[in-house]
């Protein structure tokens, strides 16, 4: 380990998104799937970067990583971020100066918060969209396969997925259709339950095909397509297992269907009051939803005034989307509260990760002294200490003294605020002349398992256990298992994953 302070690394993120960069810049930085493994290997070769995930979507390119352990507060994160920055410019063949306006970097808490916001689609162009979570999981999976995930990033990513799930279920951030093609479903549902309903597609445009697909998924049972050119109608009907019907049947079809999606290229209205009124009579005034996506419009606005006819044109659809996005934005505040709580939780875990090695070596140090003195005392007493009870009592007493003396400094270490961690750790190490191989994270595994569970508080061992190996996607364990001999001794300990990382990074730099 390069730093005497020991302890775990910190999280950082470098990247750009739709907020900071136009598509012309984003597309130049984007990574293709097959480019990611070599890019990760390249990143891990940087001196301060210990773990990495590359997230590359059409709206963002970001590198999440964790720094090598040690360094002053934030210092490592900043230098690691700088390395990631130059990596980005180098690997994409872009001048670093050209990028600096678009790139942002966050370290530590800000990086955690950013990660959570990205996962929960709070930083997405369409707030609350569901794609980004899948993309992030894929990126995490790719990094896991490339052995680029260790304890810090693994834990952070798993936590981010949990946060995303929580935000989705506890707030209304994903409620309401967010694009025009799925709004038809939402509007039709205001009128009736789509189960068992019939959809009529008039004109086989791409937009109505999309909307029809959404309606089908939402429960509509049958689909009829009619078009001026029968070939295109048959094509679309085959795609959705619907039936194609001749254009001349339109008056009858209107009586059969419950939802009409219209997008013909006609210049004059096709759905005129006379036609629709006759259809309404034939359908005994069962409600009819007409979604007119065409421009110029296929439906005469007058049909919207017929009793039982609900007509929506493209402007209406866009207004619904706008309203929904406004609602989602309101829910984003509630979502941010959840994010903040979870950031605090992960921060506590990370802090515990940083003080654990020091706590462990401090304990070790005290107990060695206590035991040494106890043995000397027993030896010095000679015959007086022959009885087993006496020996036991002396050992026990020295043990108790050590524990009593340890109590206050250990409590102080555990309660250290984020900003003081590095200072506290360094002061402790200097005061007690700790250091050397035993206090590095890669110390003896048996001790690690025992002491970390105590040192990091009662919850830590359990939560740490759930961080990597139990996750569904579990790439976090990929790297942990690289250090199987160490972690096998204490698989459920908070520190177990840390040795794994240490072993790896030593191996990497050798």
């Amino acid at each position, binding site marked *: 380990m390069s730093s005497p302070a020991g302890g775990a690394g910190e999280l950082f993120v470098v990247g750009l998104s739709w907020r900071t960069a136009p598509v012309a810049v984003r597309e130049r930085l984007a990574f293709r799937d097959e480019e990611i493994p070599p890019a990760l290997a390249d990143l891990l070769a940087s001196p301060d970067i210990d773990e990495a995930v590359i997230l590359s979507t059409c709206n963002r390119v970001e590198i999440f990583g964790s720094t090598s352990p040690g360094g002053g507060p934030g210092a490592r994160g900043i230098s690691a971020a700088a390395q990631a920055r130059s990596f980005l410019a180098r690997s994409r063949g872009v001048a670093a100066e050209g990028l600096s306006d678009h790139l942002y970097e966050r370290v530590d808490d800000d990086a955690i918060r950013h990660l959570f916001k990205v996962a929960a689609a709070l930083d997405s162009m369409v707030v609350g969209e569901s794609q980004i979570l899948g993309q992030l999981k894929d990126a995490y999976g790719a990094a896991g396969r490339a052995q680029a995930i260790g304890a810090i990033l693994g834990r952070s990513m798993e936590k981010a997925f949990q946060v995303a799930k929580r935000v989705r279920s506890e707030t209304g951030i994903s409620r309401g259709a967010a694009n025009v093609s799925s709004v038809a479903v939402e509007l039709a549902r*205001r009128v*009736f339950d789509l189960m068992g309903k019939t959809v009529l597609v008039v004109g086989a445009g791409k937009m109505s095909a999309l909307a029809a697909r959404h309606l089908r998924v939402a429960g509509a049972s049958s689909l009829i397509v009619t078009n001026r050119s029968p070939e295109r109608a048959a094509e679309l009907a085959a795609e959705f297992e619907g039936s194609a019907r001749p254009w001349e049947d339109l008056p009858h079809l209107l009586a059969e269907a419950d939802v009409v999606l219209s997008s013909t290229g006609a210049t004059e209205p096709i759905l005129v009051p006379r036609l629709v009124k006759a259809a309404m009579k034939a359908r005994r005034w*069962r*409600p009819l939803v007409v979604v007119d996506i065409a421009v110029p419009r296929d439906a005469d606005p007058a049909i919207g005034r017929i*009793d*039982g006819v609900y007509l929506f044109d493209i402007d209406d659809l866009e207004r619904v989307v706008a309203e929904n996005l406004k609602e989602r934005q309101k829910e984003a505040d509630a979502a941010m509260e959840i994010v903040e709580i979870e950031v605090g939780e992960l921060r506590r875990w990370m802090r515990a990760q940083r003080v654990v090695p020091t706590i462990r070596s401090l304990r070790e140090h005290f107990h060695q002294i206590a035991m040494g003195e106890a043995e000397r005392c027993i030896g010095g007493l000679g015959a007086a200490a022959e009885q087993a009870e006496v020996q036991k009592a002396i050992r026990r007493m020295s043990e108790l003294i050590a524990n009593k003396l340890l109590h206050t400094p250990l409590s102080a270490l555990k309660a250290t605020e984020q900003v003081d961690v590095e200072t506290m750790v360094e002061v402790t190490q200097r005061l007690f002349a700790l250091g050397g191989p035993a206090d590095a994270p890669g110390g003896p595994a048996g001790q690690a398992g025992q002491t970390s569970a105590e040192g990091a508080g009662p919850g830590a061992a359990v939560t740490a256990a759930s961080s990597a190996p139990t996750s569904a996607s579990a790439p976090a364990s990929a790297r942990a298992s690289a250090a199987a001999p160490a972690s096998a001794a204490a698989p459920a300990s908070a520190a177990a994953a840390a040795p794994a990382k240490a072993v790896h990074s030593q191996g990497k730099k050798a």
Partner: protein
Amino acid sequence: MSETAVVTVAPSAAFYVSLILYAASALLFISAFVEAPRWMAPTARWALLAAFVAHGIDISWRGVLHVHPGTSVREALGLLSWVMVGGYLWWSRRFKLALLGAFVAPAALAILALARLSPSGEPMAGLSLLGRIHISLATLGVAVFTLATFVAGMYVLEERKLKRKEFDGVLYRRGAALESLDRLSHRLVVIGFPIFTAALMLGVVWGAQRAELLSRPEWWISLVTWVAFGGLIVARTTRGWRGRKAALLTITGFSASAAVLAIYLARRALGG
């Protein structure tokens, strides 16, 4: 409450408990209507259920003490709100009726308050068994119509929002689908109609026994209710009348029956 008449009994503790619970539920439903944390509407529903149970205990306790719900307008109104609330609770299991609670719960509270305030606590003099059955059935029928009308009212409000393309309101966001409201309202009318018909027929017989004049306005107004609901059922089956027209007719029919109730109340208050 005075204990002058033998069969007049002061409300039980359960009645006051139900009043408080109705009020709490009404408050919760209304706040859920305005700005809804997710727990609010379900909590309101539980409060309403508790109020319903407490109110039921009060009604049965009075029954044990021989205060039949059909003996006075006051008792009848209590039964009316109880049946209405019960119906709401029953159907809200399957329909998205959280918004409707903001009307039903306050209505139940208002009806109960009205019943308590009405000076007609004493039972009618010389109330025959026929009269009791008439009053009970009429109450039951009107209770079902009241609920049907609330559902129809909801339909009219939601429908207007949708036709006017106002997509920002709570009615658009959290209302039930129009078709399901239409169906529920119709189902309630179909349930209420035979009950109301029977009450009307018994009322005619009872009135004839007491030699009441058929020129009394309540007879004719009741007939309006009957014709409205009967016509609605016929028009729906034969001509497919539904939606807005049906909802408006439901509201008309109910208004007539509410007018009859008001006349009874006034008559009793004036000692007629």
